[in-house]
Structure formats: structure tokens, C-alpha cells
């Protein structure tokens, strides 16, 4: 056990996992909010656009999207984010994780929007606020507070889903390093538990934090 820790840079691998998680979480939150706004907007075509986005990305396997980003977009269509192949794969992994989880963020936010009584939206329009203003001042602030718990689940899923990036990313991230250790040392239970523990340490605090936040921030009705 000790020699595996000293021979392989496990902390470095988890650091890459954390980087991927943070960057993708920010990307997914921004993109997901935009898609959620599209889905609740009064314009039919925008709603359709938002719905299509969610249906396409929520129903496509993440592994497929990952491989497609490199084999399809980068290699065949020539959309390279960097000339260095491993950097290119890293950036594509962030993009794919963001795009994929944005669909789930959107649905979480929409469930938050649904916690706001319809009367509030109607009242906001009745006092003369535009769609944008009522969204900004009335709907979204309450929607985010109502969506804290599902957003937490999405974040935890995102952290664990970074392991899928191993199919294009090589050994720099945790699941890739696990593949390398298994190749060199053979499969062993302690190694598996070590990596599982790493992910529990990363995700468990978020679970507790988001449960706590969802209770504190819930809009009392």
C-alpha cells in the first residue's frame, strides 16, 4: 500500500480530478442557467431550442460524447482547442462535462422555478416588469434557493463522472491512474478502496453542505 502511494502521484491525479470538477461545474452552471431560461421563456422557438438541448445531451451516454469530442470534432472536423494532444483532450473533457451536466443543471433549475407559485410570476408581469426583470428579480433568486438540493446531486454526479474522461485523457486523472496501477501491479482491493475513499472525501462534504444549505435557504411558504 505504502509503495503504491510513493510510486504513483495519486494526489496529483486527484488534483486533476478537482480541476476538472471545478471548471466543468462553473461551465455547467452558466450553460445550464442559460438553457433553463430558454426553457421558461415566453418565445416558443427558444423553448423548443432549450428542450432539444436537454433531450439530446441528457439522453446521450457521456462516454460516447467524450470519444466523439476527440475522434469526431477534433480529429475529423479539425476543431482543436490546443496543438498539444493531452492539453487538447483535457480542454475537450472540460467542455464535454460542462455541456453534458448543463442539461441536468437546467432541469434542476426548472424544478426550482416550479417551486415559485405561478401567482408571483403573474404579479411581477402585472406590475410592469419585463420578462427579463421578473426573471432576475423574482423568479431566479427563488428558483436557485429551491433548487439547491438537486443542484448538489448534479455536482456530486459531475465529480464522479470526471472519471469517464479517462477514455480520452490518459493517466493524468484519478481513473486513468487507477488503470495504470492495475496494469503494473495487478488488481488489488486496497487500491480500489483507496480511490473510492478519495472520491468519498471529495463528494461527502458537498452532500452534507448542500443538505444544510437547502434547509437554510429554502423559501418559507
Amino acid at each position, binding site marked *: 500500500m505504502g509503495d503504491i502511494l510513493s510510486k504513483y502521484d495519486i494526489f496529483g491525479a486527484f488534483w486533476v480530478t478537482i480541476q476538472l470538477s471545478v471548471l466543468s461545474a462553473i461551465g455547467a452552471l452558466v450553460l445550464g442557467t442559460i438553457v433553463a431560461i430558454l426553457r421558461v421563456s415566453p418565445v416558443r422557438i427558444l423553448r423548443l431550442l432549450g428542450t432539444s438541448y436537454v433531450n439530446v445531451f441528457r439522453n446521450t451516454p457521456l462516454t460516447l460524447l467524450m470519444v466523439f469530442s*476527440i475522434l469526431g470534432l477534433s480529429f475529423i472536423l479539425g476543431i482543436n482547442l490546443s496543438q498539444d494532444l493531452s492539453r487538447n483532450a483535457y480542454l475537450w473533457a472540460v467542455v464535454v462535462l460542462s455541456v453534458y451536466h448543463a442539461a441536468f443543471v437546467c432541469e434542476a433549475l426548472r424544478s426550482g422555478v416550479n417551486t415559485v407559485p405561478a401567482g408571483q410570476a403573474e404579479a411581477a408581469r402585472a406590475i410592469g416588469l419585463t420578462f427579463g426583470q421578473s426573471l432576475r428579480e423574482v423568479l431566479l433568486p427563488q428558483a436557485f434557493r429551491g433548487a439547491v438540493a438537486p443542484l448538489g446531486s448534479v455536482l456530486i454526479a459531475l465529480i464522479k463522472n470526471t472519471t469517464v474522461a479517462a477514455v480520452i485523457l490518459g493517466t493524468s486523472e484519478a481513473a486513468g491512474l487507477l488503470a495504470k496501477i492495475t496494469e503494473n501491479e*495487478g488488481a488489488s482491493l486496497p487500491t480500489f478502496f483507496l480511490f473510492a475513499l478519495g472520491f468519498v472525501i471529495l463528494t461527502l462534504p458537498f452532500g452534507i453542505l448542500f443538505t444544510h444549505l437547502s434547509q437554510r435557504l429554502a423559501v418559507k411558504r
Partner: protein
Amino acid sequence: MKARRLGAVAAAATLALTLAACGSSDSGGNAGSSGGKGLKIGIKFDQPGLGLKKGTEFTGMDVDVAKYVAKSLGTAEGDITWVQAPSAQRETLISTGQVDMVVATYSITDARKEKVSFAGPYFIAGQDLLVRADDSSITGPDTLKGKKLCSVTGSTSAQKVKEKVPDVNLQEFGTYSECVAALASGAIDALTTDDTILAGYAAQDQYKGKLKVVGQPFSTENYGIGIKKGDTAMCQKITDAIKTMISDGSWQKAVDANLGPAGYKPGAGNPPTPASCS
């Protein structure tokens, strides 16, 4: 409500059936290995030229070696149960008794010897490069500077090439098939792993004539047959079988039939002399 209860009953029944199936296959397996008749052999299912499953047929050099060895152990071809042995699971499959032996591009290494025993080697492979047939700019690892290289995540080949050419531009995928596709389309310049595996891909119908193995191996991989740790009697029998296979010409036939179509010639040291069992 009624439908749901029926569903639960069906689920329970399925579960019970699955469990029963597990139990019976376990006992059947044990009887097979102790009787010495049926053999469970772990091979690759997805490696053209070495171990490939096509429908219910199995082809490849590893398969031919396994069949020959099984025959000398007194097992007819029909009594062999082929088990898929992905690289990461080979030690576990052997140590838990799910297979009697593993013939799956299994390099003999000291780390693996701590967990399993090896008979052989039956073939000496080396890490090499696969390039497009019209590409003459890559002649070996020293010419890889500025080239785009592909290999499999965490594989020994990927690690070795990083050691040898530290600033290599390496893309890692989950499987070699993705690398080969990218190589044929021109998106990457070379693919690296054991020359046997490369020759197998180059010999596939859709890539025939489009890809070539460079032929400058820069490592030595001794393919052995993995068996339960410390089973010297079994090791001795397998070693004898490999020796006769080489001396009666079956070995050469297997190599030519499975790896020959791509113009691949076994590297130096072949055919190998199997090490003595300890």
C-alpha cells in the same frame, strides 16, 4: 397495485433463477478442472490476429497456442471453455480459479510473478510503431519528435514511450481500435504497442495495405501462459507442449496464419526457448 405485486414476484423469481444458475456453473467448473478434462482458458476477445471472437468462432495466435496446449493436456477442442480475459482482470481470473490458464498477450513480469506463475515464453514480442503505409518519416522512437502518437490509457506501452520520448505528443484512448481509426484517417501519425497487436490490426481487411509496422522493436515482451501460482506440475506440462509445438512446425504455422498477412516477421529471439519451471 396488483401489477406491482406481480412485478415484485417476477423480480424475486428472476433473482432466484440467477442465483441458482451461478451455483450450478460454479460446481460444474470445479468438477471440470479437477477431472482434467474440460479446460477454461482466458483469452482476449477483441485483439485481431491474437485472440478474436467472431460469432461463436475464436481465431488468433493465442487461440491456436491454447488449443495446442489443451490438446497435449488431453482436452479436445470442444471441451475448452473460452473466457474473456481483459488485461486488468488476468491475475484475478487465475487466482480465483475462474480460468485454468490465461493465454492473452500476457507479458511475463516480476510484478505479475508475485501473483501468478508463468509457463513459457511461447512468443517474444516487442513494442513497435504502426504508421500509415505511405509514411516514411517515422523509422523508430527517435523520429517521433513533433509527431502525434496514440496508445491506450495506462498501458505499459504508453508508459514506456513516455519514458523514452519525454516530450512526445501522446493521445490516450480506452481501446486500440479508436487509435487505429484515428491513424487511418490521418489525425494521428503513429500508434504504439506490442508489434504482434499492431500486426493483427494491420492485417484486418479494412486496413490491408494502408498501414505498416515499422519493425524496430524497442522493448522485449515475453508472452507466457499464466497459471495458478506454484502449480509446477501444470507448468511443466505446458512447457513441454510449447516445446513440441515449436519443434513440429505448428508454431510457425500459427504465426504465419495469424500475423503473416500484414507482412509481419517475428523479431529476434523467436521462436523462444521456454524457461524451466520453478
